[in-house]
């Protein structure tokens, strides 16, 4: 039996606390046998638990008492401590959990130290714009100044302070080479390695029996080749694609439920075949357990959204190729959390699959923060409150080099039929909100016989992609434009015999058509219509 029994009683029991709240309670001691207590030590803080190595942050510690305890004695000691305004809030995921604790231990010499612990919840109010604690680590010094402060008081400099707090020196050569930055010292080192490897390999071939000598001599070169591939694959890919512009709007920070417009654009210097372009939103719990050789990483996907922008196609040289997707964060996406061995990490990934050639890959980190915090940070920095779909040509269309049109082609300036615009607007809303293929098919079926009289202001033209084309529009061109009264842009497909007329159109020109609704562009979130002629 322990020398004493300890227990903790919190005021208000299991009620969830708020960041910034003072937690009060009492520690109760029941002494079972005479002993000396060198210190009844209380700690207050948060801790991770689950599959990853435990990370603890004690924010308050005190010695409640010390002295000689007598058998049968009962004592109570009040305590109070504040949950920092930045939290972190309690989180219960799959591999990772974050909870708050009060723990008390009695330091009794030459005996097992009795202890007690009580956990409690901390929950953020939904309307709080207090900057939460999102991580600690070697790179968190600038971040620490932000935690617990109202986001509305933070300037745009706050956004520049948002960095991965776990950013550290690379752990190995591959990690070092995969990071951007000066690589001359690395390549010098690699060069020395190659010379040494060739020297050793030469000796191996001479002294070791075949094929061992050959394997020994080739192994370092194979390793070097692999490292070079990992480092330089994007460089190789850019030989085919040209410079790749990869953007995410809004960038850097996002709130749960936000729509992110992800755009990839490149102008290949030569004809290039592509297998696919993928744009992905990924949220993972990533934890590490063990140490040394037993160190194991466990990953649980919170969210994986993949937009496969197009199937195999050949892109002509000199023509802009764009891929665009709208990826929506889940409404209950947990906030970014980055502490040692325990992370909730969000990122946007872009992947261009080039057949028989190194692929192009890039990743942009995203800081997911509570909605009021994001809104306040954006207001402070003057950036857009939410993303809008770009009106520039999207995935799968290639845009021919712009030409000077003599005059924009303008037909009779009759506005679109207002009832047709209203009807098309309603159909667009139904298509946008549909989550199952059947829902969209029903919209198309309902409007199969409908012809919309529309006036379209042309924004761009391009070749109709094979995936989007119908029998009528195969080989033809697509016009992207806006209709007055309609919130989204539209894509109008025309047959091949209208190509010359489409080419003659200039940006800003206005056309009038009678078109049928034939599809929905999920990448861009816009309706696809088809007309038989201009």
């Amino acid at each position, binding site marked *: 039996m322990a020398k004493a029994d300890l227990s903790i009683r919190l005021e208000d029991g299991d009620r*969830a606390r708020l960041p910034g709240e003072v937690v009060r309670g009492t520690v109760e001691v029941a002494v079972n046998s005479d002993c000396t207590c060198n210190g009844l030590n209380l700690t207050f803080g948060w801790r991770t*638990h689950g599959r990853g190595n*435990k990370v603890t942050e004690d924010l308050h510690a005190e010695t409640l008492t010390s002295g000689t305890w007598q058998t049968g004695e009962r004592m109570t000691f009040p305590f109070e401590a504040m949950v920092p305004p930045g939290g972190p809030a309690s989180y219960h995921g799959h591999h990772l959990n974050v*909870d708050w604790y009060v723990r008390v231990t009695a330091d009794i010499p030459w005996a097992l130290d009795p202890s007690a612990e009580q956990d409690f919840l901390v929950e953020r109010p939904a309307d709080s714009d207090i900057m939460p604690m999102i991580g600690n680590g070697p790179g968190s010094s600038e971040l620490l100044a932000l935690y617990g402060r109202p986001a509305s008081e933070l300037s745009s400099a706050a956004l520049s302070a948002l960095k991965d707090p776990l950013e550290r020196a690379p752990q190995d050569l591959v990690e070092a080479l995969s990071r951007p930055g000066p690589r001359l010292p690395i390549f010098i080192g690699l060069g020395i390695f190659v010379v040494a490897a060739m020297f050793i390999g030469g000796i191996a071939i001479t002294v070791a029996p075949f094929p061992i000598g050959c394997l020994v001599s080739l192994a370092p070169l194979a390793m070097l080749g692999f490292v070079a591939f990992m480092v330089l694959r994007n460089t190789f890919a850019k030989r085919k694609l040209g410079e790749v512009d990869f953007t995410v709007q809004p960038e850097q920070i996002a709130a749960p439920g936000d729509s992110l417009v992800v755009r990839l654009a490149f102008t290949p210097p030569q004809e290039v075949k592509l297998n696919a372009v993928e744009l992905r939103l990924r949220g993972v719990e990533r934890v590490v357990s063990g140490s*040394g050789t037993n160190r194991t990483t466990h990953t*649980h996907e919170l969210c*994986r959204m993949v937009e496969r922008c197009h199937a195999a196609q050949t892109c002509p040289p000199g023509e802009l190729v764009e891929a665009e997707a709208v990826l929506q964060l889940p409404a209950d996406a947990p906030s970014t959390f980055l502490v040692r061995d325990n992370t909730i990490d969000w990122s946007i990934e872009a992947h261009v699959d080039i057949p028989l050639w190194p692929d192009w890959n890039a990743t942009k980190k995203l800081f997911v923060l509570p909605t009021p915090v994001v809104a306040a940070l954006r207001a402070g920095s003057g950036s857009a409150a939410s993303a809008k779909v770009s009106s520039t040509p999207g995935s799968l269309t290639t845009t021919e080099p712009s030409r000077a049109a003599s005059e924009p082609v303008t037909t009779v300036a009759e506005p679109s039929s207002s009832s047709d615009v209203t009807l098309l607007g309603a159909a667009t809303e139904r298509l946008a909100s549909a989550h199952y293929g059947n829902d969209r098919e029903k919209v198309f079926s309902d409007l199969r016989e409908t012809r919309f009289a529309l006036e379209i202001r042309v924004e761009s033209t391009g070749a109709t992609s094979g995936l989007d084309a119908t029998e009528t529009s195969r080989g033809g061109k697509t016009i992207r434009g806006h209709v007055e009264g309609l919130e989204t842009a539209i894509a109008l497909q025309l047959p091949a015999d209208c190509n010359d007329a489409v080419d003659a159109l200039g940006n800003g020109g206005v056309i009038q058509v009678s078109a049928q609704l034939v599809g929905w562009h999920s990448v861009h979130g816009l309706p696809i219509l088809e007309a038989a002629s201009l």
Partner: protein
Amino acid sequence: MAPNATDDERRPAAQLAFSNLNLRRNPFGEVPDSERGALAVLELGPWREFLEQERAYLEFLGESGRGKSTRLHALRGHFPEAPYCYFPEDGPFPTIPDGSPVLFLDETWRLSWWTRRRLLRGGARLICATHHSHAKAARRAGRPVLSVTVQGLKPELLSAIIERRVEAARRRPGSVPVVPESRIRALIAQHGDSLRTLEYDLYDDFEALRRGQNPWPRQT
């Protein structure tokens, strides 16, 4: 496109962790080395008796994940002042303190021959965890030697380990989940005596229980 994670997996933190199971945490989450010893189900008596001898050398021999380090940590509770040194694969190695009468050394097979020789010829009692035995060298150094091979796992022992882990995570008096015998036998059949990989499956079992699922469908 709808996200792939299920709603169950994105539960807001509305209640204390694992309170629906009368637990405070997942019993098979990662446990710090310092706490592993207290959770071990071991008969320490014979080893403690052996360690009363001068210059005793006790080694726990076995593959990763079998419980060598757990045994070290369990014995540390009886030698609270003795230093513990772990020698990681990717270094650096800690400095081994001089002058301590008892030393706990984890992964001694990674030490250089010279360092091991110096230790074995010294005067401290050594309790080691290792993949390769140093018993012969220890005997040559004049030490009494006890080499314990850590392997094999019986259902009764695993059941006792599980029960202790669950009890350590208990929230308050009352019922707690019980892993059925059929599941225990299935785990041993699948993982053998690798406690570490076995724990991974049990972790998933308790996560399923937390979400209201039954990971052991044949049990009522």
